[in-house]
């Protein structure tokens, strides 16, 4: 089915289809010492790593430390990485490991994740269009909340990944082959079934 997704028209980011190829180009430039290329990779992929770190339940401050450590470690490993999938796989695996390292060290822990899914930030009153949008956002939020924690984390993180690298990200998260990309996978199929069954299917 084509047409609008649940939140209005599907907006494909202009950069999306070429994102993987662009990142691969930036990786080889960064390996040759191009500081700006490395900086662009940081800007491009930090939001993905932020979600990886936060999904483990780290506080904001700890998640910031994890991201800094991951990127610094990448500088020492850049010679071993040759394409976008390898880069993203390495970054996600390392972010997850560094996050669990912080958990294991027992530094200022906070069960951020449980609180997170409990409440959607209030955007305040808006136009009629905004109200409809908010309602649809809430339905999606409620549906996501009905998935298993593993599925929630997978979809939350995949949503920030470049399309060609879904499978690499899923593998780095320890999900089985085929959990997402090139096929839909169980988590996304379940979410679509929940959304199709409408609000009556979701306890309020």
């Amino acid at each position, binding site marked *: 089915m084509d047409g609008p997704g649940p939140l209005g028209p599907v907006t494909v980011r202009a950069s999306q289809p070429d994102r993987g190829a662009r990142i691969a180009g930036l990786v080889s430039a960064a390996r040759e010492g191009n500081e700006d290329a490395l900086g662009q990779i940081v800007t491009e992929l930090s939001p993905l790593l*932020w979600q990886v770190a936060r999904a483990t339940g780290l506080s904001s401050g700890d998640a*910031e*430390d994890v991201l*800094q*450590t991951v990127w*610094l470690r990448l500088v020492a490993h850049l010679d071993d990485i040759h394409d976008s999938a390898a880069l993203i796989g390495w970054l996600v695996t390392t972010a997850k490991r560094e996050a669990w390292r912080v958990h294991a060290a027992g530094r200022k822990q906070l069960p951020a994740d449980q609180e997170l899914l409990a409440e959607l930030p209030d955007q305040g009153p808006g136009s009629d269009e905004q109200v409809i949008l908010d309602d649809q956002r809430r339905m999606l939020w409620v549906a996501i909340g009905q998935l298993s924690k593993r599925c929630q984390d997978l979809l939350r993180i995949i949503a920030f990944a470049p399309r060609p690298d879904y499978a690499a990200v899923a593998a780095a998260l320890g999900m089985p082959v085929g959990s997402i990309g090139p096929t839909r996978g169980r988590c996304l199929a379940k979410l679509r*079934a929940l959304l199709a069954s409408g609000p009556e299917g979701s306890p309020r």
Partner: protein
Amino acid sequence: MMVSDAGGRPSADEPLDDADFGLLDDIRRLFEAADPMPNDLPERIRFSLALRDLEIEVARLAAEEDRPVLAARGAEQSRTITFDSDSLTIMIRIDANRDGTVRVDGWLAPPQRREIEMKTAAEALTVASDDQGRFAFPRVLRGTAQLVVRPAGQESSGGGRSVVTPALIL
């Protein structure tokens, strides 16, 4: 109204379609609103990656403690931060100076003489640690800063790697 297939329930084995990509875009927007990454984080990371050192060893933040100290005028904070790398522990204490700058006192363990750089947006200050591994930067501008411990001499077994900390905010 919501995403649904005319042919019934979407199957897990089908290839990803436009509705899936639209849904993932929506999920991304949800989490961008619910759990946004701090805006200035990529900038701080880019700052910490601007290194002229080729071989680096990463020092992780191991502990951070804020302690109120009695200063001449009211309570001031003294911060102690510890970084650990494979070969070195770096501990620093940050105290406010009266002129708005900060003083940074540090210790290296195991104790050793090394050249230490404090990189800030405005300047790069370099000092040396003594035999006990002590070093001090008496006046550092507030803001984003990073410590780089330069490689030990060739004669030592430590090798040619610089130990770098993440960017911190003084």
